[in-house]
């Protein structure tokens, strides 16, 4: 086999953390190599070393047979390695085209940027990816999903020989994912190699040729996709057997808890629905269909222009998130880096941020032992992988950050919990833990609204499913009647009786 890349015995340590311990990794030319592992296994770190963002502590990298060492992203780029990072890295105030070609703008002899060229090439790339969007639009006006597509376009524009995709479909819905897979296949036929990181098992079996698995910063094994099945793969990742992905429990719906009536503003119009005690209401829809806006309007983070919200039949006056929290409504953001967490603060401080009132006494004095006890409880309950509750959240892996973000809302002991893409970037094992937790709260009578772009998750966990289309409610399905097909139809706006 012809390997374009070989990384040998790579070790990387951060202060107090051994992120990679003599890891081996190789990529065959013209193939897709999956890189799998639990949250915090070291996948992103390995790829950041490859792309010149981090420097390895020890080990060797061979690229096209020669030993290399990239000191900066530019060096890696110039050698033909492109990366789509797990977290978005775009300039909000620049246009799509400017972002795609940042650092490599076409210029004319006067050193003037050749805008015609710039936009022409951007249009070509976007078309290739099946994205219908004007390249003159600013990034800040795009939804996260579209932004992710711009990141992909940016990586493709480098015309690199290896393209690393760190959870590229994390923010994509099925439609874009299908497009992306087409693109990956085209790239393969052109002889390009791809490293593909994802927590979605389905995707791995659909698009990858080989898998490499890491666990706790160690190399576990490399397999051809043909010689392994999903259960074995999961066992390689988590070190134990794991079955039944979606442990939904049936309950008898309790009394009506929340009533949303004719809620409207700039981005959503005329939305009404009820939520019952112990119910999980799934919210599905295409990218940009207004699900997040709906959640944030209920939560008071966005002003409602019309409509009302009732809790236990009483009309609520929610003007800000703090009002919502007081009424027992909590929200977990879809964007943990942007507005979900204070990355520079510790695990403990982030967890207690919304619920600090519960730990404060006279003159706002924080009862630290109570705070610590409570934080430790959540770290254990949902297995957050962190050296201590005093670790800075920035240094946690993406999935573990997500868990901290959920814990923050749970600490307020809400009656209504709104989860916006709760398992985005979360590994299979942790997903299960989050689902179990949701079920536990469900049993205690908590009502949950779960926005998700993963239809299997929606189908697997919800009691009822609300589907949105262009800011409007296009239907509510009972789980017994729901199928993937029906949801998709409603999501694209086809209503049926």
């Amino acid at each position: 086999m012809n390997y374009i890349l070989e990384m040998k015995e790579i070790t990387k340590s951060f202060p107090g953390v051994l992120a990679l311990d003599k890891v081996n990794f190789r990529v065959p030319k013209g193939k897709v190599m999956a890189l799998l592992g639990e949250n915090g296994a070291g996948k992103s770190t390995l790829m950041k070393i490859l792309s010149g963002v981090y420097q390895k502590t020890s080990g060797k990298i061979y690229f096209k047979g020669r030993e290399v060492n990239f000191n900066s992203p530019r060096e890696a780029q110039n050698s033909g390695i492109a990366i789509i990072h797990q977290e978005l890295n775009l300039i909000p105030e620049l246009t799509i085209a400017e972002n795609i070609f940042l650092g490599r703008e076409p210029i004319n002899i006067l050193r003037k940027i050749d805008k015609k060229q710039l936009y022409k090439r951007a249009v070509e790339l976007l078309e290739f990816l099946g994205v219908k969007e004007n390249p003159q639009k600013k990034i800040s006006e795009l939804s996260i999903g579209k932004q992710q597509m711009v990141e992909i376009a940016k990586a493709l524009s480098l015309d690199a020989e290896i393209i690393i995709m760190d959870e590229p479909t994390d923010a994509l819905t099925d439609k874009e994912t299908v497009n992306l897979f087409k693109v990956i296949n085209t790239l393969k036929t052109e002889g390009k190699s791809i490293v593909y990181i994802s927590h979605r098992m389905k995707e791995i079996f659909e698009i990858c040729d080989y898998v490499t698995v890491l666990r706790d910063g160690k190399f576990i094994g490399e397999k051809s996709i043909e010689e392994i099945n999903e259960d074995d793969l999961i066992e390689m990742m988590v070190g134990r057997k794991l079955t039944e992905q979606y442990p939904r429990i049936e309950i008898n719906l309790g009394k009506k808890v929340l009533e949303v009536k004719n809620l409207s503003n700039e981005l959503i119009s005329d939305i009404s629905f009820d939520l019952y005690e112990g119910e999980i209401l799934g919210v599905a829809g295409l990218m940009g269909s207004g699900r997040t806006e709906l959640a944030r309007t209920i939560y008071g983070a966005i002003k409602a222009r019309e409509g009302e919200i009732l809790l236990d039949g009483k009309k609520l006056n929610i003007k800000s998130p703090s009002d919502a929290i007081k009424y027992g409504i909590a929200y977990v953001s879809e964007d943990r880096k942007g507005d979900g967490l204070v990355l520079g603060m510790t695990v403990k401080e982030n967890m207690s941020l919304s619920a600090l009132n519960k730990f404060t006494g006279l003159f706002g004095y924080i009862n630290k032992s109570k705070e610590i006890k409570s934080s430790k409880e959540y770290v254990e309950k949902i297995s957050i992988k962190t050296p201590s509750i005093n670790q800075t959240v920035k240094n946690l892996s993406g999935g573990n950050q997500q868990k901290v973000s959920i814990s923050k809302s749970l600490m307020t002991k809400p009656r209504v919990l709104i989860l916006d893409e709760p398992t985005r970037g979360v590994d299979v094992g942790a997903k299960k833990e989050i689902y179990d937790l949701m079920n536990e709260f469900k049993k205690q009578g908590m009502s949950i609204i779960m926005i998700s772009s993963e239809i299997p998750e929606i189908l697997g966990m919800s009691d009822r499913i609300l589907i949105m289309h262009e800011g409007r409610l296009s239907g509510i399905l009972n789980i017994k009647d729901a199928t993937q097909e029906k949801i998709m139809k409603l999501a694209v706006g086809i209503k049926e009786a």
Partner: protein
Amino acid sequence: MNMNLSKVMKYKSIIGLVLFSIIISILNPRFLTVGNILNILRQTSINSIIAAGMTFVILTGGIDLSVGSILALTGAYAASMVSAGLNPFLAVIITLVIGAVIGILNGVIISKGKVQPFIATLAIMTFARGATLVFTNGKPISIGYEKNAEIFSKLGSGYFLQIPIPIYIMILVFALGYYILKYTRLGRYIYALGGNEEATKLSGISTDNIKLYVYGISGLLSALAGIIITARLSSAQPTAGTGYELDAIAAVVLGGTSLAGGVGSILGTIIGALIIGILNNALNLMDVSSYYQFLAKGLVILVAVLLDRKQK
């Protein structure tokens, strides 16, 4: 891990401060006398009290350029109240309230008006300077020579157990500031706001209120510094406090607080203020010409932040 790091950081600046002091005391034996140390502490009290308030503001990612003007305006009010025969205790309370109110005004413009802190406080700085000049008619206001003036002046020039009063005030301010930032909900919210405003808002915290608090605190402490300076001089100057904002910001940053917000401590600030205070005192003691003092100050600030900066 995190705690260790910040402990080392703290030690680093303290070690720097101590080393610096040792060098100076070798160069000039008069430096390390009890008299001179009290002298330095008293001189540092003004800047450090303003810098304490500035720490609150900077931790939220803001900045307050109006401190010097607030100091001048409140100092002038205080002097005129005292010279009019008002009870000095009452005069102090009223002055502090005025300072807090102007500070809260800053906070309102920034939070409700959504104006950038730099420019909002620049406007208030200019406005308050104008108000001071109009109020004083460009002339200093003497606190007079009555009994109440004498009591008032003790706040700046008095002693208790042979230690100047301003030093007690300074210690009190830092102790309270430390307590608030470290042990209370408000303190936690201030760090959160500076770390990520959006996330703080979404956590159900009224970031607007926090801004009112921090600018209010900064205004209040500027007024406190105004009272001390007026008491020390027994007179309020219309030009008082000009340029003090830069000294205060320098103290905060030298103390390891990031201007981006979210990171830092008020104990660092007092070390930063001491570095500046000791530097001024030492350069005077060593009879360095004032022109070269500028050069030395520029260099020391630079070296101090270079030593203190975080590893990338």
